[in-house]
C-alpha cells in the first residue's frame, strides 16, 4: 500500500458522514433482513466489513 492510500481506519472514518437511512439501505442490499441480520450475525458482519474495506483500498488504487 503506498503512502497516499487510505488505511482501513481512515476509510471507516470517512463513512461517519453517511446518513442512517443510507447505512440502512446498504445493509438491506447486503443482507436479506438488513441491519437485523447484521446484528444477529456479528461475526459474518465483521468478516464482510473487513472484505469490503480491503476492496475499498483496491478500488482506491485503481482510481489513482
Amino acid at each position, binding site marked *: 500500500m503506498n503512502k497516499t492510500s487510505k488505511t482501513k481506519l481512515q476509510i471507516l472514518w470517512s463513512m461517519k458522514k453517511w446518513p442512517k437511512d*443510507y447505512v440502512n439501505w446498504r445493509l438491506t442490499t447486503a443482507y*436479506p*433482513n438488513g441491519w437485523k*441480520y447484521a446484528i444477529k450475525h456479528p461475526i459474518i458482519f465483521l468478516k464482510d466489513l473487513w472484505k469490503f474495506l480491503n476492496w*475499498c483500498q*483496491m478500488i482506491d488504487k485503481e*482510481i489513482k
Partner: protein
Amino acid sequence: MLSLKIKDITFKSPIIAASGTFGYGDEVQKIVDMNKIGCIITKSITADEREGNPHPRIHESTSGMLNSIGLSNIGVKNFCDKKILKLNDLNTHFIVSIAGSTMEDYIKVLDTLEKSQGQHVGYEINVSCPNVKAGGMEFGINKDMVFQLTSELRKMTKKLLFIKLSPNVTDIEDIALSAESSGADAISAVNTFLGMAIDYKTGKFLLSSKFGGLSGPAIKPLALSKIYKIYNQIKIPVIGMGGISKVSDIVEFLRVGSTMIQVGTLNYRDPSIISKFYDQLKSFMIENKINDISDLIGDCK
C-alpha cells in the same frame, strides 16, 4: 456546457447514478450535491415486495464486484406510498427502474407509477430478469420478448422509456434494434456480466445463488465494445455504463457513442463520487476547449 436533452427532458449533466447503487434516491441527498447529478435511477421496483436472495449475495472481486441481490425492494405500493413524494423534492430528475418476472408484472408496476403523484421523468426497464412464463429465460436475451415488452409499455406512457440491456447475449445490437423499433427512447447498456466465484480451498460457492453479475472496472473494455456496437446500429441515444472509475473513463464512454453515462459500483466506494466526476469533467472540457458535451459523443477514430 454539460447539459443535454433527450426528447423534451433537459438533464443538467450527462452523469447518472445507476440503478441499485444509490438507494431509492432520497437516502443520499444529505451527502451529495444534487446540482451535479444529471439524474438518479432508483433501485429496481417490482410488483410485490422482495427480500432478495440469501446471504452471501455480494462478493468483492479483483477490480470489481459480483452481486446476486435478487431484486430486493419494497414493492411498487410501498414505493408510491413512502418514497415517491420524497423523490419529488430532490433537486434533480429521477427515473424509476422497473423489473418483473412476467409481462403482467412490468405492466402492473408501470401502471401504478403512472397513476402515482411521482414527478419521475421516465422509466428504465430492467430486462435482465427471468421470464417465468418462458421457462425462466431472461426477457433481455430474446429480441422478440424485448419487442413485445417495450411495445406494451410504450403504449402506457409518454415519459422517457429506457431499455437496460443484458450483455450476456451473442448480438446485443439486434436486441437494441428491437427495443428501438418498438418505441424505446434510449438504450441503457450494459447491465452486469454473468460471473461466479468459489473458495479454492473448500470449493464452496461464494454467492448463495452460485452465479452473480460482475460490475466494476474489470468489465470496462467489454462494456465499451458493446456500446460501440450498439451506437453504430441505432439512432436513439445510448446510456453507457460498465466499470467507470475515473473521469477519463467517462470521456471514453462518450467517445464510443454514449449520450449519457451511468456510474454504478463506484458509488459503493464513495456515494459522492458523481459530484466529483461532474467537476472533473467540466475541467477536462475547459482544458481541452470543448464547448458542448455532445461534441464528444461518438468521436472515436
